């Protein structure tokens, strides 16, 4: 059976898969972004406890396989009476995992902002938090935009592991179609194409966004 007929015949399967993949990737990106900023700030705190929490968070989540994290959250936590739906588990895993990587990206960005910037802000009477929010973070995020884009693309692709716990994302749907058609290759090629279209579009969008930011304030 050829790829196009598989695609057309099982389009509703793929549509469902796209929905869940996009949903989980979007949650992972947004929550990972916000959480990543918080973790990077914890990690750079002057107090030892937040610093420790931030470091442990980053090292543990970067140093263990995401599929292991997923299984611990979905199956392991049941032992403590914590039960998540597959989608919840997938969203949590993607968010915390990407937050660890993004935290490191943000840290590099924040530390890359010239010290004179925060000195100038502080000399104007701006408190530390305000300086971070209005002066340091906007410049930091801008300078690490390519690295952030990289991480977003990774999240879209890595979201495929949620199929292991039964979320009907693209990866899961391709398996379902394989079971019906006994055609192993075609569904995989279709979802590969769909994943590629998603990541390629995102990468182009981010590129355009970067150029727009660069037009108004080149340094």
């Amino acid at each position, binding site marked *: 059976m050829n790829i196009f007929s598989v695609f057309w015949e099982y389009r509703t399967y793929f549509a469902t898969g796209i929905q869940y993949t996009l949903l989980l990737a979007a949650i992972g990106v947004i929550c990972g972004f916000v959480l990543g900023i918080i973790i990077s700030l914890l990690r750079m705190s002057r107090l030892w406890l937040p610093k420790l929490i931030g470091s442990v968070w980053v090292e543990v989540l970067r140093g263990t396989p995401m599929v292991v994290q997923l299984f611990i959250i979905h199956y392991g936590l049941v032992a403590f009476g914590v039960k998540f739906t597959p989608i919840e588990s997938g969203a949590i895993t993607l968010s915390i995992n990407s937050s660890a990587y993004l935290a490191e990206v943000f840290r590099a960005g924040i530390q890359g902002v010239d010290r004179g910037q925060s000195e*100038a802000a502080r000399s104007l009477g701006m408190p530390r938090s*305000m300086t971070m929010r209005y002066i340091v973070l906007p410049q930091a995020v801008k300078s690490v935009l390519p690295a952030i884009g990289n991480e977003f693309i990774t999240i879209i692709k890595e979201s495929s592991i949620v199929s292991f716990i039964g979320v009907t994302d693209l990866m899961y749907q391709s398996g379902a179609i394989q079971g019906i058609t006994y055609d192993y290759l075609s569904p995989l090629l279709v979802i590969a194409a769909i994943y590629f279209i998603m990541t390629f579009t995102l990468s182009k969008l981010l590129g355009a966004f970067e150029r727009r930011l660069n037009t*108004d*304030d080149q340094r």
Partner: protein
Amino acid sequence: MISVKDLRKSFGKLEILKGIDIDIAKGEVVVVIGPSGSGKSTFLRCLNLLETPTGGQITFEGEPITDKRHNINATREKMGMVFQHFNLFPHKSVLQNLMLAPVKVKKQPPAEAERIALDLLRTVGLSDKKDAYPSQLSGGQKQRIAIARALAMQPHVMLFDEPTSALDPEMVGEVLEVMKKLAEGGMTMVIVTHEMGFAREVGDRIVFMDGGQIVEQGTPAEVFGNPQNSRTKDFLSKVL
């Protein structure tokens, strides 16, 4: 207005400031000169606690700002600072650079902050640059904007940390001109500079620092015309 007693600052084992005592009166223009490494920039940066002193105390308008419980942010609102490398915010337009702190910190209504900002831009002669970004400005223009930005907070004193040292020679004049106007307007100023001509012309008092101490101070005529200390003589003979 500012009173400094036995100010000390060490970085690790290295003692940069070895006990500075000075009183600065309202409206006074104090120019700090001295060889590099003499601690003059560190001294200036201690005045608004960008560097935390390791010893001694600083009083500003009667408040002990080196006291641990003192809220330094409130004091910094009243102390403008101008840096060698301008440190304009590159992601904000000129107008936004001037308005940010007044609106966010002093909670000025944006319309009022904008009026003050436009006034200041006129004073420094850069009204036409209000929508420009720092990257589009020359060094001299950047520094004039940086001065205007500090003034937008309506400070009681202005600190200048080598404001012309990073400038091309042909741009030094325009910045000094703005500072001179400010001094004539009665602003209290503490200026660290290598511009001896400017120091002599605008300074009410010249402070010569060397080795982390104030070696000699007096009116420009006294310090430049008739230096008493041998280190002052030696320094002046090299730079004049």
